[in-house]
């Protein structure tokens, strides 16, 4: 974007390194803790004998279902992200392009914003009742559906902002050329909004990946997600720091991989057939 030469290049790289350091250092520190026995963590030691005990305990101990939790989280985060991107992007496109029904659009956007403000604590009860009535309590389906609802407001608002950035002339030209609206959406608008789609997708994925309150209430032991499992390390009288650090590291890796694959998929799938 910016043309960085001479001193401004140096300043920019300095700032960027500072930012990367500030963001990465605590994470690396957590990684370091995951290799220590608890006493070394508590004493803040820098010289210690590294151990894989925490990882082994998280993954293989009898009371741990961590691989299962990761699987559940991957399923929930993947499906809810795909779902919310589909539903949210379509809605955002519609709201940006068809301004004739301004009242409906305002109502909808206002409602999503208000809904987003509700403390999750007060949502859990009604949702538990709904899914119990549907016979879906304790299933991943319930969690996927609630996560779509939770992330829908943000996705719609974000995608609207990105769609607004696309110059109207491109689409108007396509319409004159005789393309139908679904085709314009798929072949022109979406490919142009790929960076936005990726950002929205990553955020929906992350929020689903880390969501705790709803997942806790709607899951049982074998459908529990990663945040629920990790909370078990924060016990009534002690925090098992080593295991918690190891579990945090372990939970970020599949999420990173998944997001990396997802991004490539979106980029390839949409730019391949794009009308540039």
């Amino acid at each position, binding site marked *: *974007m*910016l*043309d960085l030469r001479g001193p401004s290049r140096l300043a*920019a790289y300095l700032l*960027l390194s500072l*930012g*990367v350091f*500030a*963001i990465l250092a*605590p994470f690396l520190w*957590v990684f370091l803790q995951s290799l220590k026995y608890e006493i070394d963590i508590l*004493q*803040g030691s820098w010289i210690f004998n590294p151990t894989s005990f925490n990882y082994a305990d998280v993954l293989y101990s009898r009371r741990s279902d961590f691989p299962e939790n990761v699987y559940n989280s991957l399923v929930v985060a993947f499906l809810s992200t795909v779902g919310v991107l589909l539903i949210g992007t*379509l809605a955002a*496109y*519609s709201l940006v392009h068809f301004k004739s029904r301004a009242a409906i659009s305002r109502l*909808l956007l206002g*409602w999503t*914003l208000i*809904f987003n*403000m*509700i*403390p999750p*604590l*007060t949502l859990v009860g*009604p949702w538990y009742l709904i899914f119990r009535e549907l016979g879906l309590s304790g299933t991943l389906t319930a969690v996927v559906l*609630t996560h779509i*609802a939770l992330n829908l407001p943000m996705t719609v608002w*974000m995608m*609207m*902002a*990105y769609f607004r*950035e*696309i110059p109207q002339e491109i689409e108007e030209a396509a319409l004159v050329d*005789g393309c*139908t*609206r*679904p*085709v314009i*959406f*798929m072949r022109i608008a979406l490919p*142009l909004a790929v*960076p936005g789609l*990726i*950002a929205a997708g*990553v*955020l929906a994925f*992350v929020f689903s*990946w*880390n969501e705790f309150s709803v997942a806790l209430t709607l899951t049982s032991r074998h459908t529990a997600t990663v*945040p629920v499992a*990790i*909370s078990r*390390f924060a016990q009534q009288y002690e925090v098992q*720091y080593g295991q*918690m650090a190891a579990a*945090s590291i372990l*939970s*970020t890796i599949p999420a990173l991989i998944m*997001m990396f694959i997802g991004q490539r998929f979106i980029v390839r799938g949409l730019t391949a057939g794009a009308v540039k």
Partner: protein
Amino acid sequence: MTTGIKRTGSLSNFADRQFHWLALAPACIFLVLLTVYPVLELIAMATSTITFERAREIWRFTPVENFRQLLDDDIFRIALKNTVVFALVSVVIEVCFGIGLAILVSSAGKAKAILRTILIIPILMPPVAIGSMWKLMYSLDFGVLNQAITLIGLPAVNWLGSTSLALLSVVIVDVWHWTPFVFLILLAAVEAIPNDVIEAARIDGASNRSIVFRIIIPLIWPTIVVALFFRTILAFKVFDQIFLLTSGGPGTSTEVVSLHLHKVYFQQNDLGFGSMLSLAVIAATVAFIWVAYRAGRFVRARDA
């Protein structure tokens, strides 16, 4: 979707004409099915007193009592003040850092992809782990922060235990946790700016500084507003990190609304007044966003 290329067939014709409705429908269905009932229930509860007897809920309609209790709630007032300060400070810092990082990373060439991945790591960590691990880092006697500070000869800092510092310590964690969120949203907006716009400006002799303030920021302003909205809402809902780091103490120095709500609604099981608090939080968030939005427009109008 591919059948839509041809303009024949009544189905695709219908899809074409009614596309805006069809595109909107799934979202509407979802919102009606999953959000209307909880919101109505919340309002109903906020105007009631709910007790339990023989495994049944007993509702009494007490809107006035609940509202009066809200007005009399000193701790809620303090919590609201702390929340506003917390939201204002952390969101402003995060948006500034986020814009800076987004522009820098978008100019970073080949390193862009790897930087984008690295810089979002904080939002990938589970909130309970963030709270617990930062508490360890802030530890007075053994924390890494005080290790660094005492290494350069300064006295250890009482990060979470002093009334004047505790809120700031919590803000630092929030900035670390959520700057990546703003960065990610804004990076996409910066990337979508057509290159020729910036090239044209550069040919006109614009400096980097004026490109940032005269072109990039105005162009991504709608996205900044979205990021501001959602960050503010999240900041008003802040819970995990404060619950784990300070429990709202010392005294009331880090007491925030969601912590108070958690005590009333969850621990005391006072669903009626708890829901009234929820509505108050929502009203406060709306007011805050509205004021911030107006202020933003005013500033921009003056600058333009």
